């Protein structure tokens, strides 16, 4: 039996051996965590629209997002966000808090390598693609907007 065939067979065999875990609990947890984070966001939104009635809706939204981002960085710092993340899975990643956690966690982790080469360089090791794709995507959207 040649090597490639052996390897495909082995991979298929391993795949069949991997224990099937129940998906429902983790889906439920993701739903719960994601939902709660969004509801907290709504709370900030209502708070800011009450405090600053002159601001436009989009600006209130920005303030709300900034507050959640700040809080997430704090919770990452005190070592609590990874607990939420391990429990809630995608529920902690997809809200903007996941973006914020993916910037602050390497910043905190690589602090020991110094401020410039640690914090500043490593800050975007995980969230870098989000910013790159965001900028490139927004430029494409701008071009599309110009053409239409």
């Amino acid at each position: 039996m040649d090597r490639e065939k052996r390897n495909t067979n082995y991979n298929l065999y391993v795949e069949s051996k991997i224990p099937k875990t129940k998906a429902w609990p983790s889906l439920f947890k993701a739903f719960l965590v994601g939902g709660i984070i969004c509801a907290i966001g709504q709370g900030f939104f209502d708070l800011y629209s009450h405090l600053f009635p002159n601001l436009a809706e989009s600006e209130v939204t920005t303030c709300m997002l900034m507050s959640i981002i700040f809080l997430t960085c704090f919770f990452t710092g005190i070592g609590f966000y990874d607990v939420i993340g391990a429990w809630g899975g995608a529920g902690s990643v997809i809200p903007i808090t996941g973006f914020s956690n993916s910037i602050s966690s390497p910043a905190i982790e690589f602090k020991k390598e110094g401020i410039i080469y640690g914090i500043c360089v490593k800050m975007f090791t995980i969230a870098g693609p989000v910013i790159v794709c965001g900028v490139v995507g927004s430029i494409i959207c701008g071009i599309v907007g110009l053409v239409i």
Partner: protein
Amino acid sequence: MISVWDYVISFLVGGFICFLGQILVIRTKITTARILVLFMVIGMVLEVFNVYAPFKEFAKAGASVPIIGFGASLARGAIMATKEYGIIGIFTGGLTAAAGGISMAIFASFLFALIFSSKTKKGGH
């Protein structure tokens, strides 16, 4: 002014988006960076096809807190800026719209990195 319905719909829609994300995680072993990029691009596409605004009107924070909202605001910023400033807007619009979020993420991360250090994970989660 504050309505309970806003919270209920935020919870349900936001939760449902994360639910879809978790299905992806389980099925494809997708990593954090990929999930973030994927959902952000979904947000951009929704914005380009003018679906995001009515969706946000309906779902409130359930639409703006997930990274979909971040993508949509990048796209909306770029599109609006081209209407106002022409070609230069293609390049300035996106980041201008998302500046608040990105600046706060960078600033707060820097600040807390100076204050805190990482800790070992407490057992297996």
